[in-house]
């Protein structure tokens, strides 16, 4: 069994933390795991993506183009950009939020819309779960939990080899005490979002 995932978004959205928690969960279930990501300059509002590979034995943390099983997108443009990494039969979980890049603001690149980008994503993947993370987070009264909602959605994918309890344990071990309860709720909300579709 191997499972290759791409987590992608914009520096500051929590791509690193969320993919960390995923890796911790994989470790709890006894899998080998390797992850590649970039810190530093990418923090400053740039594109950021993490490759996560789970299996019995993982040698390299980098995923080949067209070989990822799942893309977890925090933002639609970055998700569309990552489609080249996805298997033809792969799955996308996308937060339906579009943040225009600064180039677009100055008018140097062609204008895009959330709808246009979502259409690209629908076309580029066999299975797409759209998650309106902000709206769901709004239900919990805290916009910071969008990423945990996405993690919940990932955990509920069919054929996910990691146990629900392992995700919950990984969340609890990574976060400060006062945020654990809220994030476990967010995780559950994300799970339902996929399970009920």
């Amino acid at each position, binding site marked *: 069994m191997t499972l290759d995932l791409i987590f992608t978004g914009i520096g500051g959205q929590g791509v690193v933390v969320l993919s960390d928690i995923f890796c911790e969960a994989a*470790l709890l279930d006894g899998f080998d795991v390797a992850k590649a990501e970039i810190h*530093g300059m990418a*923090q*400053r509002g740039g594109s950021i993506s993490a490759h996560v590979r789970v299996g019995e034995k993982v040698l*390299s943390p980098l995923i080949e183009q067209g070989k990822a099983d799942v893309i977890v997108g925090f933002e639609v443009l970055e998700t569309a950009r990552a489609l080249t990494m996805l298997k033809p039969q792969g799955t996308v979980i996308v937060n339906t939020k579009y943040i225009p890049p600064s180039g677009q603001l100055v008018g140097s690149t062609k204008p895009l819309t959330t709808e246009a980008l979502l259409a690209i994503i629908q076309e580029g993947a066999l299975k797409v779960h759209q998650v309106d993370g902000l709206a769901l987070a709004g239900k919990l009264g805290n916009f910071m939990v969008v990423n945990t909602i996405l993690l919940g959605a990932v955990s509920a994918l069919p054929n996910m080899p990691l146990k629900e309890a392992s995700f919950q344990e990984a969340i609890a071990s990574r976060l400060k005490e006062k945020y654990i309860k809220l994030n476990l709720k967010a995780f559950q909300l994300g799970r339902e979002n996929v399970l009920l579709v």
Partner: protein
Amino acid sequence: MVSKIAANKPNSYLLFNGDEAVARGALEANVKVAAAYPGTPSTEILEAIAGVAKQFGIYAEWSINEIVSMEVAVGASMAGVRSIVSMKHVGLNVASDAAMTLAYTGVVGGLVIAVCDDPAMHSSQNEQDTRYFAVHSNIPLLDAGSPQEAYEMTRDAFELSEKLQLPVIVRLTTRVAHGKARVQIREFQDLRRDAKFDKDGPKWVMVPQNALRQHRVLKGRLAEAARLVNASKFNVLEDNGKDVGIIGSGIGFYHAKSLLNPQQFSWLKLGFVYPFPRELVRKFASNLKKLIVVEELRPYVEDNLRGLDVEILGKNQLGLDEIGEFSPDGLRDAFAKLGFADPAQKPVCLDLPQRPPGLCPGCPHRAFYYALDTVNQFIKCDADKCSGCEICEYVCSAEKEHVFNPSKSRIRALRLNVLFNMAVTCRACIDAPCVKVCARDALSQSKENGVIIVDESKCDGCGWCIEACEYGAMTLHPVTRKVMVCDICGGEPACITECPESALTFAGRSDDKVVAGDIGCYTLGCLPPVSAVQTCLCMGAGISQAAGMVHAGVKDKAFAVIGDSTFFHGGMPGLLNIAYNKANVCVVVLDNRTVAMTGHQPTPESGKTAMGDDAKTVKIAAIAKSLGIDKVNVVDPYDIEQTRQLLRATMDFKGPSVIVVERPCPLKIEKGAVRQVQDSCNGCGVCVKAFGCPAISLTVERAEIDPTLCAGCGVCEQVCPFDAIRSIEQK
């Protein structure tokens, strides 16, 4: 949350990145002193050690630069305890003066130099290969290809260092340092050593006669290392009895092994790479027909294979170059070329806009660059867009004279040839020649924004200023016969908003100043729309580069921008040098009270040490004064007008000067009141096109501020010419 680094669970698996793995290895080896200067991707090594230092009785410090950190580690080693110093690849250049001679003196306590290379320059200015520094300095080097190796190598490197009495480099690359993986840990050693310096050892005093002897000693120690290396557990031979072998070092080797069928080849993964394990490689090659080399950056392993009786397939044969890092896809194509793999899939490339990193919302650097950009404000025309329609002339005359009469306009649309149109107005020159030439003192220049002020009671229409203006911006009023010139309409020029081609913008004078940059977040000021930073070479270079330009005869006003931590690191010698050699350079210290780019480490100014203890707060302005700079000013960049005034005064000042631009990094402090765009916004776009805050976007009609991104700095309020941005409370 307890730090994982400190977990006392031998044989368990933990998720570490390469840096944390190095830290764990050092903790297990009973390291006593750790020092570093932050540098991506090496920063988390010291961060991890410092986080548990007190618990383990370790001393950990952020030193002010890499050579200082290395000297601290050397001192500890001389006293007999184990020490580690960590840095990025270019940091080793800074520390190299110490490192080169350290190989001669050797060490007592094990000394590990952890160096993180950055192939592909994810956050660096070059991609040098530290394996060659090992050759250059005669320091043994272990090359880690995974976090597990980084951990094992660091743990064992201390023992190796003590055995050889030499420092040992543990090299990581970005994908190892910032890649996370499962690492199996072991138990903590307890060496219980007391620090004691053996004062009688003449080997520490590198006067020529001692150094000559030590050079010979070094060669002897290297010969011993060359024997050990062939049996090192870090050089892993996997003989599958095949004709084709693959040899390599670093993570590139694992990328290759991951995409090929391992049983199809024999493998030799080199970890202890300097001195080069010649015997082992010869043995490996003896049963092979072909030997493929997989290594990122320079062909270090490949160069060492010369003379083997086997066909070598290296960088040229695989079509892999020395630039950038390996991707699995690139490697797949390389192996496909040799017939060992299917070519990589070529997915349809979507034409999507890039999202480069930029200065954050609320960044004080952006506010400063905007002030610098608009020191002298004038209306700039983009000749590529200007159609020569002359609407600006009509708008100007209507605004100023209440008539549609282009001869009464302060802006002129010129048709220079059939294809080249351009509108010109006053450029607000520094030391404006029109003001100098006026015989009747009728002209003066605003200290605030450089605008030329006409005293009509004194002007007699002689026209000398018209002759003196290089831009043709001065004209005589057809009726009053007094001179007239653009006054930027108090910052709200109608010509800009009415230009149908959007060819006119509000701009500063970038063509009469040079801005030498340095290394840190503020280097991103090279990006549009501020596009202020013109150089970036190495830590501290900007000040001296600017001085060099001035001494060479460059007439533009020279600025050097440098961050607070970079100033402490490498800026102080350059500043003393311009004070001593009287260079007309204004050094701007962008002081955000932290090392922001690498993740907010403390600086000598922050009053905290790496271990969280209180420290003396060293003030940059005081340092500048004591280094011999007489003109030192401090300003808050969130006050654009005051910053601009200070910069204007500096433009006219001849001699070395310093401006300390003080404002903490917004990521470190609580958000201010979120701003909102009011209905009075007319969509002029200054806040986006000239200021460029990522929290503001622009539609055709108006600007919008994303409340989740806005940092509440309020600088856009000052930037907006129409008073259309307010804080939510003000509304």
